[in-house]
């Protein structure tokens, strides 16, 4: 079999594995970001402190270090995660922390009058957050979240450090058999560019779809 006949199915198998992590880690990151961002604005003092420490830690650690910690560090404590679990969890912890900053900023950018009006209507703090603040804040945070989602697609290539068989991992092994690094890594680049470009267009379409005409002006 020739180089291409062998490499293309292999790298596509890697791409499926990459997507298999991302379909879980991206929604989970967004959910974690909303929880962390809300906790840092609406939580009481201890909750705020915990959420802040969490974000500072996982924004501060390079993603590779988080991956190594979860895979090898936790093993020291007797907790053994599979490469798939490690990669997914690391992306959620890291991505969720970065994204939470956009959610926090968006929540704080919403006029205090909205909050007061909700409370005056008899809503609890929790109802106010869920029904009034978050639907507006998430729309505002969406451009920032989109950026982070695109980052996560690219950084998913680091899952190879814990032995997860994604695009880059299979390519790295493949060049030891056929030494054609230029072709192999250009194919990788093309796959990532296709994914990031598609995601950028998809997310822009989502932003447009969720847009409420005039909202931007009213919450500024």
């Amino acid at each position, binding site marked *: 079999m020739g180089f291409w006949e062998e490499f293309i199915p292999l790298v596509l198998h890697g791409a499926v594995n990459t997507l298999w992590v991302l379909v879980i880690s991206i929604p989970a990151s967004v959910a974690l970001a909303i929880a962390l961002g809300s906790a840092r604005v609406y939580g009481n003092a201890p909750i705020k402190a915990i959420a802040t420490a969490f974000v500072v830690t996982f924004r501060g650690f*390079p993603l590779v270090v988080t991956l190594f910690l979860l895979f090898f560090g936790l093993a020291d404590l007797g907790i053994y995660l599979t490469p798939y679990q490690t990669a997914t969890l690391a992306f959620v912890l890291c991505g969720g922390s970065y994204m939470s900053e956009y959610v926090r900023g968006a929540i704080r950018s919403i006029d205090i009058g909205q909050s007061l009006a909700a409370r005056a209507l008899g809503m609890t703090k929790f109802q106010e957050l869920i029904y009034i603040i978050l639907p507006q804040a998430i729309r505002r945070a969406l451009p920032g979240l989109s950026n982070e989602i695109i980052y996560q697609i690219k950084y998913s290539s680091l899952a190879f450090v814990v032995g997860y068989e994604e695009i880059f991992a299979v390519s790295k092994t493949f060049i030891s058999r056929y030494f054609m*690094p230029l072709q192999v890594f250009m194919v990788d680049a093309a796959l990532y560019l296709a994914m990031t470009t598609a995601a950028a267009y998809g997310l822009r379409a989502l932003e447009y779809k969720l847009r409420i005409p005039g909202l931007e002006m009213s919450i500024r």
Partner: protein
Amino acid sequence: MDPVWWEYIPYILQGAIWTFTLVGGGLALGFAIGVPVAMGQKYGPTWLKAVLDAYVWFFRGTPLVVLLFLFYWGVFPVLLGIKLDALTTSIIVLGLRSGAYQSQIFRGALNSVDEGQMLAARALGMTKWQAITNIILPQALRIAIPGWTNEYAIILKDSAICFTLGVIEILTRTRYVVISTGEALGPFLFAGILYIIFTYGGTKVFNIIYEKYHIPGLVGKGV
């Protein structure tokens, strides 16, 4: 008995020299690339804009680890026929990629300088080039400092990825320690905390630079 990991702390700390060589080199090269690219994107002819857009799209859309391997094993030895060591390759790749990001920071800053400034400079008899270097850039560079602070934090954490080429920076050394002592939790936590300290320390330095060159009233008027 295996040695304990904290005896190797000085060894890990020495990696900081390599980490900051990567960060400093990458940021400086990125700056040297990013500023002209941003100017080309804003003031250049259409064909140049298309070329620069393609450069930015490629380097922003491809993961760093793929770029490192592409250049280390492919572009330099195969395509250009030169053998570069891991450190040089890493700095060049970090710089090329940072240049793509920095060009977007500067493009934003250039756009935030009021259009009237250019018109006024031209009305005073300056050439377009003189107006850019004497009027627009001194303002845009100041506006871009906060964006540059972010870029520092990003490139610092990304420098860890250069362990894949074997540059003996903080993470590579930490992994050696993990392998030789058989302990993983302590060394990796230590490395993580070290990166947090360097992020905050460096951010402080950039904030001092920002304050030093800050012109009261500049930011906010043009934006």
